[in-house]
């Protein structure tokens, strides 16, 4: 054997280190701000972590750490719904720890508590930074602006095969109760662990060479999964540059990843994504069927209405035509009645006229006859009067004549006292007489005989001269 240097067994050394550590720091608890470089939830309930401190991209300190299973409930209680999000790779946490050295396992930190406020702040800070950046670059809404077709038929799926989420999705899509057929292309990729981000990025780039109705990013399975990959700036950036709408269904209950912000639509589970796609198709089909049924109903109503319109028209025409002829018939009847009564009136008028003419004829004739009668009567009367007058005239003349005659007779003269002188038997008419000529004077009832003496002057008296 040669001259070998003095050596110690590893156990001796490490036991010595342990003694030093135990003496100086063991059991002393302190708050440590550190990044979780890796984390493993062991079946035993213990949690094994790798803590690190990075500076300018370089790891400047690194250490293993553990949370014993009996400490987990307390920490779970403290972290509540954020438990899974806080205890995940890449997160910076503020944890209450003590140092433990084990000769077998080396130096490790025992974590007994985790500060919630710090943890949440850290996760949120990081995620917010990413979101802010995407917003600032105008990328956050880009995918949302892509119009999802009414019916999704072609689907590109990024998923890890053989995970329950993937299987649920495929089953829901392909064996949907409505029998819809979808064109599903699978782009298999790890969705957790190192390299998953790159893989997902590559898949997205491949998919983007074609237009799909949607790109689905799903992650299904275990309850404790690392979601942090979906807060990746790179993935969200790629999503915003896709020509197809991206749906996220990365299976988490509470927290929202950056991807959820950047994607077109975010779903809690892969099943929800598939339900959405199938329901969308169903809604579309329902609407189509509904609209068609409404159209058909309208059509039937329209036809019915047109039939009844037609019936109304035709009946209306029949009625109008009937009332039309009825009206005309009435008018005709009235017209004829008027003609008949006018005719009768005319005939009656003529009859009356004739009757009047005849009456007047009679009257005029009678008048004529009566006039003549009167005239004849008058003539006859006049005849009597005139005759009387003629006779009376004659009579008056005769009476006058008689008076004259009687007054002229010699007897009348003598009766008045006159005498008639006679000479020699003849009437003395004044001739010269010789003296003593015998004159006989005849008186009324005697004759005196005398002798002429002389003649004397006397005035003449003529009784017949008026």
């Amino acid at each position: 054997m040669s001259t070998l240097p003095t050596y110690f067994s590893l156990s001796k050394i490490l036991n010595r280190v342990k003694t030093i550590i135990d003496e100086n720091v063991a059991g002393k608890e302190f708050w440590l701000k550190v990044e979780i470089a890796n984390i493993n939830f062991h079946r035993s309930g213990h949690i094994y972590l790798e803590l690190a401190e990075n500076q300018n991209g370089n790891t400047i300190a690194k250490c293993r750490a553990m949370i014993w299973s009996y400490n987990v409930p307390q920490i779970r209680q403290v972290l509540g719904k954020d438990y899974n999000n806080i205890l995940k790779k890449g997160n910076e946490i503020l944890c209450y720890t003590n140092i433990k050295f084990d000769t077998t396992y080396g130096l490790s930190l025992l974590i007994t508590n985790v500060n919630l406020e710090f943890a949440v702040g850290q996760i949120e800070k990081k995620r917010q930074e990413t979101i802010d950046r995407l917003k600032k670059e105008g990328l956050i809404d880009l995918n949302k602006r892509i119009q999802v077709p009414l019916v999704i038929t072609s689907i590109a799926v990024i998923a890890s095969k053989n995970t329950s989420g993937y299987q649920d999705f495929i089953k829901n899509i392909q064996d949907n109760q409505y029998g819809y057929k979808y064109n599903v292309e699978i782009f298999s990729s790890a969705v957790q662990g190192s390299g998953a981000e790159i893989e997902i990025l590559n898949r997205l780039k491949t998919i983007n060479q074609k237009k799909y109705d949607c790109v689905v990013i799903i992650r299904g399975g275990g309850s404790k999964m690392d979601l942090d990959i979906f807060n990746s700036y790179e993935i969200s950036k790629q999503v915003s540059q896709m020509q197809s709408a991206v749906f996220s269904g990365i299976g988490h209950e509470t927290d929202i990843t950056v991807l959820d912000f950047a994607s077109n639509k975010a779903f809690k589970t892969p099943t929800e994504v598939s339900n959405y796609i199938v329901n969308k198709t169903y809604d579309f089909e329902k609407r189509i069927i509904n609209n068609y049924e409404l159209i058909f109903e309208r059509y039937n109503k329209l036809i019915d209405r047109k039939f009844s319109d037609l019936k109304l028209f035709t009946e209306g025409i029949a009625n109008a035509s009937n009332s039309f002829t009825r009206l005309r018939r009435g008018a005709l009847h009235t017209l004829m009645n008027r003609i008949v009564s006018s005719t009768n009136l005319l005939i009656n008028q003529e009859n009356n006229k004739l009757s009047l003419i005849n009456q007047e004829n009679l009257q005029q004739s009678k008048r004529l006859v009566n006039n003549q009668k009167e005239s004849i009567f008058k003539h006859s009367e006049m005849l009597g009067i005139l005759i009387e007058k003629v006779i009376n005239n004659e009579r008056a003349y005769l009476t006058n004549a008689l008076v004259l005659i009687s007054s002229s007779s010699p007897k009348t003269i003598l009766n008045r006292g006159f005498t008639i002188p006679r000479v020699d038997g003849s009437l003395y008419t004044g001739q010269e007489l010789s003296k003593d000529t015998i004159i006989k004077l005849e008186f009324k009832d005697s004759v005196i005989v005398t002798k002429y003496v002389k003649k004397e002057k006397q005035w003449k008296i003529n009784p017949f001269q008026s």
Partner: protein
Amino acid sequence: MENKPLSELTYEEASKELESILEKLRNDEVSIDKLEKVVTRAAALSKLCQDKLRNTEQKVQDIIDKLGL
């Protein structure tokens, strides 16, 4: 002086003769000697006329009565 017998005289002739007698009487153209004769003739004439007149009157009256006026 007319010499026609009275019975042959018409009323007209009698009347005319009477007239002429009266005319003569009025004009004192009848001498006392003839006066009586003339007057007698006139009286006869007058009588004749009056008779004729009365007769005519009666007949006319009859005719007119018959007319029934």
